[in-house]
């Protein structure tokens, strides 16, 4: 009985109404079956596949090739038949390779320096990431989820197909782009150049980019611990997170610890990227104040070899859509505490991440404010498994008199606090794929009359150049 079977049993037995459970089971069972099949013995199945290239052994640095029939062994002790089979396979291997281990696609003699496939080429590094999900909601999913890549209704969701492109342009610039393909088109999520050789520890980014307001905003779905976007980000900036065309200047302070100051000026318009500012409307730029300006201080403290603390302070300001030179100001504090041992099994880690956002907006005749926060913990507990839990809170907007207000032109109904609790389990077949299961309870009295339960199953596949993960 694998943990996944146990998990699916728990899911099926959940008291969420018989019809709901049945539907959930219908949606989730193929995915779980897939998860189960894949988790059980992915590499062995791949090995058992006969090689396709004209009878030659597939290029692999591993023994036991050439179509050795694989059966599933419950214990680690090989059976007699299996031993015989292995001996046959070994004999076959040694017959083809003179008793050498099978490194069929590798050069056997040592060579000086990198050659062959590793020879430099001028093509940019490409990677492609596919995220697909199946979701079930006990209520109206579309009323409560707003993330551009979130599963938003019961059924299947094509979250995204992301193409990342990057390469040094010349000794002075590096180019990076993230193009996101949905079922309906292509979106240039990010495309920017970064300077590499400015003096005085300065760095400039120019183009379209996610602003470095807070911690989660600048990240992409494939680095998230959860299948869906944080609702604080979707409430403050929109389904895609805060980004825009613009210019960013950052400076690494000459201090004994890492302290980086970031300033950026970006377009203040965008329905799903800058909704607290100009949003989706058309506006003319008349002065520099018509842009969104962001400042952030990112500090890192290596508390010990294993324990890291990131602290960020952010502020952003820009014009908003209510006219009369009204402005929106947002402030954020983010904390990221990560423990990862540097000896023993170093692929284990625990991370704690929390952010709080304070938003103030001028509207005709009032100044409305609100607070949003979330905290999440993620634990990589085994080579292939990780778990995570998240709590999010979004406060009702209140006016200058301190009373809850309906004057919020974006979410006029958000007059009561919203709470969402999510839990996720992730199976990592390798570093390049993730299979995830997530459950959540969303209590949003202003958006849905009763708490909405949801369950997502998602898969993520990554091909191409190895991703470099920012901390």
């Amino acid at each position, binding site marked *: 009985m694998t943990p996944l079977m146990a998990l699916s049993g728990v899911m099926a037995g959940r008291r969420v109404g018989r019809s709901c459970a049945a539907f959930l089971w219908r949606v989730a069972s193929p995915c779980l079956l897939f998860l189960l099949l894949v988790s059980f013995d992915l590499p*062995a199945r791949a090995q058992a596949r006969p090689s396709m290239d004209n009878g030659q052994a597939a290029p692999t640095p591993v023994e036991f090739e050439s179509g050795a029939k694989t059966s599933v062994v419950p214990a680690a*002790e090989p059976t007699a038949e299996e031993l015989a089979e292995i001996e046959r396979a070994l004999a076959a291997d040694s017959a083809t390779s003179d008793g050498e281990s099978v490194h069929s696609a*590798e050069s056997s003699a040592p060579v000086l320096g*990198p050659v062959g496939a590793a020879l430099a080429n001028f093509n940019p590094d490409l990677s492609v990431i596919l995220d697909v999900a199946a979701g079930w909601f006990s209520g109206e999913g579309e009323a409560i989820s707003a993330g551009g890549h979130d599963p938003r209704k019961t059924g299947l969701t094509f979250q995204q197909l992301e193409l990342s492109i990057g390469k040094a342009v010349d000794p002075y610039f590096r180019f990076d782009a993230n193009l996101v393909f949905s079922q309906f088109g292509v979106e240039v999520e990010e495309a920017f150049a970064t300077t590499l050789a400015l003096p005085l520890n300065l760095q400039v980014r120019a183009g379209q980019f996610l602003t470095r307001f807070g911690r989660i905003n600048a990240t992409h779905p494939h680095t998230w611990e959860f299948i869906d976007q944080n609702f604080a980000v979707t409430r403050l900036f929109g389904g895609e997170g805060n980004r825009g065309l613009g210019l960013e200047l950052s400076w690494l302070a000459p201090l004994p610890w890492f302290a980086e100051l970031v300033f950026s000026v970006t377009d203040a318009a965008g329905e799903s990227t800058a909704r607290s500012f100009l949003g989706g409307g058309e506006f003319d730029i008349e002065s520099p104040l018509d842009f969104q300006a962001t400042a952030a201080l990112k500090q890192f403290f290596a508390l010990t070899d294993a324990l890291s603390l990131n602290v960020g302070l952010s502020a952003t300001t820009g014009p908003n859509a209510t006219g009369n030179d009204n402005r929106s100001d947002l402030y954020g504090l983010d904390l990221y505490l990560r423990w990862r041992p540097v000896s023993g099994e*170093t692929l284990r880690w625990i991370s704690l991440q929390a952010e709080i956002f304070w938003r103030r907006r001028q509207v005709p005749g009032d100044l409305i404010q609100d607070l949003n926060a979330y905290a999440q913990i993620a634990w990589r507990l085994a080579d292939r498994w990780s778990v995570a839990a998240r709590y999010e809170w979004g406060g009702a907007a209140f006016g200058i008199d301190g009373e809850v207000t309906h004057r919020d032109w974006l979410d006029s109904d958000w007059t009561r606090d919203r709470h969402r609790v999510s839990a996720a389990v992730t199976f990592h077949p390798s570093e390049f794929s993730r299979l995830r299961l997530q459950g959540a309870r969303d209590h949003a009295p202003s958006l849905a009359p009763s708490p909405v339960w949801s369950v997502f199953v998602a898969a993520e596949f990554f091909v191409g150049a190895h991703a470099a993960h920012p901390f």
Partner: protein
Amino acid sequence: MHRSIHSSRRCLLARRALLARLRAFLFCLLGLMPALAQAAPIKVVATVPALASLARDIGGDRVEVTSLSLATQDPHFVDARPSLALALNRADLLLAVGLELELGWLPTLLTGARNPRVQVGGPGYVDCSMAAMLRGVITGPIDRAHGDVHAGGNPHYLFDPHNALRVGKLIAERLSAIDPEGSAIYAANERAFAESLNRRVADWQARLKPLKGRPIIAYHSSWLYLAEWIGLREVAFIEPRPGIAPTPSHVARVIATGRAEGVRAILQETFYADSTSRLIADKLGAKLLRLDGGPNTRRGESYADHMERVVAALIEAMAPAVQSSKEARP
């Protein structure tokens, strides 16, 4: 009245204390002057401790060496902590293993480091694999169905001391290029390093002779160069493919192979989980050698010290007869 006298006296005392402190500060500053007059050390940053140790041997007093990872950390998966970007920001020379070993973390750090000296292509960027004799170079088509393979070759090349000699030469050249004044010193240090390491290699090879042709099982393909150098046969890997965690059916086959071959030693780096390896070792009656991936430079261990530790562990596990003669050694 009383109070004002009192306060003016306090003021005077405070001023005196301030002056004393200022004087102390100036003395300190003067004391530092000669040190400042001396050339500041060349700041060398190595991605792994083995390269850091080579840089220290060759750079001597003229360099200040930092390693971005520890010997007990998996160099494939180092967290790109911003403090490492800070080290790179101040570096004059960066020594990388190359062959995509650091691909998951070094590029992010380098971009954030804002230091043109050590950017790829810069005068201070050294891909040490350029000097090494490489094995495991993929010549056929490549994809990750083979696991997390390194197209350019197996990156654990420093486990062959001959590669350490070659890399040492490269480090001396690159140090001389960025610090021409010290080139004579670097050349002399490199000669001394090579002589001393050559002596030890001769000694190791003599002691390891009885192990030639013996089978071993490895967890990850980290020991290819060591095996080729000593003449060990890697008959199985506990990882079914590089970077893929072991599965039951694969483990069963590893045990079968181990029995058929009479494997006496299982090699793995300390950062991999060891329960599977321990199980296999138990079934085979073999010894599990959990070795650091490089020298523990924090404890002052050098590249040669670490290799000595590896050699001694192999001999102890695989040739008990040889051990007694080793104990007789001074």
